[in-house]
Each structure stands twice: as structure tokens, then as C-alpha cells.
């Protein structure tokens, strides 16, 4: 548990350094600060999981998150982000919405989604790609010009 707690804290610190290094890429016209930071966080966590080939245990995060809550406008900010994403997914075809939710939110692989839903693997991949591209357009994130550096 202690090792995993350390992992989580390390990850948070790395994410902040990444945010610092990538601050110039933040464009308020394209996305909110919350979404930008969430993107950086996802990158770092994907990299960590790929590197370590193991998953960080959820119970270790209890240690990190044990402090009392200070809920203020931060909740509202996230609620706005969630609402925008929710609306965007609502405009997708049900199959596309389901595949995106299972892959991005539930963390399921395309094969796992195919097994769970009965859709052919190729269909799952098609829904995932078209759904993500369409959601990008609906959410107005389609005007970015910067491309991610593949080695962060």
C-alpha cells in the first residue's frame, strides 16, 4: 500500500511538472484549463502504466485523498466540463456513445468491449474512431494546430 501511495504522489508531481512545461501550449480559446490539465494527466498516467506494465492500486489513493474536502468553485468547473462532454456524447449514435464510454471511462480495451457487447471487433474500432472524431467536432476542439510531441 505504501509503495502504491508513493506511486500516486509521484504521478501527481510529475503531472504538475508536465503542466508547467506545457503551459505555453494552453490555449483558452480551444479548451478550458481543467480539460487541458486532465489531458496532461492522462498522458502521464498512460505513459506510467505502459512503462511499469502494472496498475496502480486504488486503495493507495485513499491515503492521498484522505484530507477533508474543500469544495468550492472547483466542483462547478468540473461540472461544466462534464456537462459539455455529456451533451456531446448525447449527439452521437448510441453505439458510438457506448464504445467511447466503455473505452475512455471504463478503461476497457476494444477486444473487451467486443466481448462484452457482442459487436465485431472491427465495428468497435470503427465506432471508437468515428465517435471520438465526432465528439471532437461537437465540443469545438477541432481547431487545434499544435501536435503533441510523442516523447513527453
Amino acid at each position, binding site marked *: 500500500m505504501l509503495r502504491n501511495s508513493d506511486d*500516486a504522489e509521484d504521478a*501527481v*508531481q510529475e503531472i*504538475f511538472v508536465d503542466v*508547467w*512545461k*506545457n503551459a505555453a501550449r494552453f490555449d483558452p480559446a*480551444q479548451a478550458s484549463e481543467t*480539460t*487541458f*490539465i*486532465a*489531458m496532461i*494527466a*492522462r*498522458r502521464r*498516467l*498512460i*505513459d506510467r502504466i505502459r512503462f511499469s506494465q502494472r496498475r*496502480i492500486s*486504488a*486503495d493507495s*489513493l*485513499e491515503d*492521498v*485523498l484522505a*484530507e*477533508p*474536502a*474543500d469544495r468550492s468553485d*472547483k466542483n462547478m*468547473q*468540473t461540472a461544466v466540463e*462534464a456537462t459539455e*462532454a*455529456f451533451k*456531446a*456524447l448525447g449527439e452521437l449514435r448510441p453505439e458510438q456513445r*457506448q464504445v467511447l*464510454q*466503455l*473505452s*475512455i*471511462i471504463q478503461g476497457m480495451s476494444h477486444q473487451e468491449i467486443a*466481448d*462484452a*457487447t457482442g459487436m465485431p471487433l472491427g465495428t468497435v*474500432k470503427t465506432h*471508437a*474512431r468515428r465517435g*471520438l*472524431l465526432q*465528439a*471532437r467536432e461537437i*465540443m469545438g476542439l477541432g481547431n*487545434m494546430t*499544435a*501536435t*503533441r510531441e*510523442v516523447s513527453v
Partner: protein
Amino acid sequence: MRSTIEETRLDLLCKQAVYGLTESEIEQLQELEKNADSSIDSQSLELTAAAISMMGLEIEPMPDHLESKILSRINEHAALASNADGSVEENVFTRPRQPVPAESPSGSSVWNWFPWAVAAAACVVLAVNIFTSRNTTDVADGPKPTPTLEERLTPAQQRQRLIETSPDVARAEWGKGNVDEIAAVSGDVVWSDERQAGYMRFRGLPKNDPAKETYQLWIFEDGKLEPHPKDGGVFDVTDDGEIIVPIDPKLATKDPKVFAITIEKPGGVVVSSREKIAALAKSET
């Protein structure tokens, strides 16, 4: 040929945004990017995935000790950057009342950036929590948070509160399914899209043996019994009389039209065979 290359590039970009890429895939994408003629870029797809990943979540606070560590590390970076261009000699984050003309390594003002970075600290902790907890099957076993008002209410009180405070609440009456022994089931289900919460109220739903079987809710959004409804969670009936069960949808649910209760093996299933449908309800709105 060109469209095939672009298709491959889009596949890789989407995979990068959702799952990340292997080393060989990164190299392949870099090669494809050299001749890309599409306006679709990786960052916009990553932002889209990030926004979706935040759906239905609540911010968690950052512990003080972790915040201190992070501020310390940012301090180090700021000091290094400042010393590199000679514009600032002191530690900018320990002198909050001083005007700071220094620029961050990326060119934006430290003080323009710092407030929202601190405000977003909780978001980063949240992101770690989301990503790790959603990619693990481990069960959290740490200290429990203080119950909220909602948690202190009985299910009946919570249901009533939802009805009274959510103008968008949809309601449906339970009727029999295809199990002859459960023909007398009645009650209703209420659901709020805005709150992403709802409650089922049953009368006449028989007690089940949790070691042998469980009840499972399925939510259909398009009004038909489509192949892939939303999993609304499992529950057991251990008492006679009226029972109220909170709905625990695994995915965001919008405008549900039909609710179905099936009888499944303990723990529930991912896809139901629908052999035993204990109850059905069709939304009135």
C-alpha cells in the same frame, strides 16, 4: 493509397488519445505525420478524451503535504528558469507580494499561470484517482469519508428528495415480465438525467437467495429492447413488503425509455440472455 495512409494515421491518433501508443506505433505515427494533409491533430483528440473522462465526477481535494511537495518542485523549476535568463534571482513562489516580471520556461507569465495551476491541483489528484481506480479491479479499503446529507437519508427520503428537487424526473410504473411466478410486481421507477440518479420502488418482488441469483437492472434509451442496454446495477431483495433501491448506472444515461429487471447469476452479467425478466417499466415522459 493516400486515403489508406490517412486512415492509418487517424487510427493511431485515436488510439494515442485513448490508450497510448507502443514505441513502434509512435515511430509509425511520426512517419505518417510528415506527409499528413489533414487538420486533425493529436492534441484535440486527447482533449476530447480528457473531457469525456471527467464526466460524472467530483473534484477531490489535494492533501496539504502533497501540495507542499508540488509547490516546492515548481519552485525549483521556476528558479532554474529565472536564473537561466537572469531576470529573477529569488524564489518567485515564496514571495507572493512581489511583482514578478519573470516569464516561465514556456513564455507565459508565472503569475498568470500559477493561480490556475494551484486551483487545478485538485483536478490532477482527481485525474490520478479516476484513471487508476477505473483501471483496477482492486477494492478501496481505506478510511471512509464523512457521510453527506444525502447518504444519511433513508432510500425513501432520498427518492422523495430527488423528486422534489429535480424538475426533469421521469417516472415509469413496474409491470410483469416473463416470469409467471412474479406476476404481481408493482411500484415505480424515477430517474433524473440531470442528477444521473434514480430510485426503483417495488412491491411484490420476491426475496432472492444471493448465493444463487440476483436481480439486475437494464436501462434502454431508445424505447426498443435494443441489443446493448445500459447496466443499471445489481441488487438483492431480502425483505417482504415495499422496497426502494437506488439506481447505480455504470454509464451515463440519457432519456431512458424502458427499464427491465432480469434475474441473473450472483454478481450480475455483462450481457443478459433475458431468459428471466422479473419486471418491466416504460417511461411516461
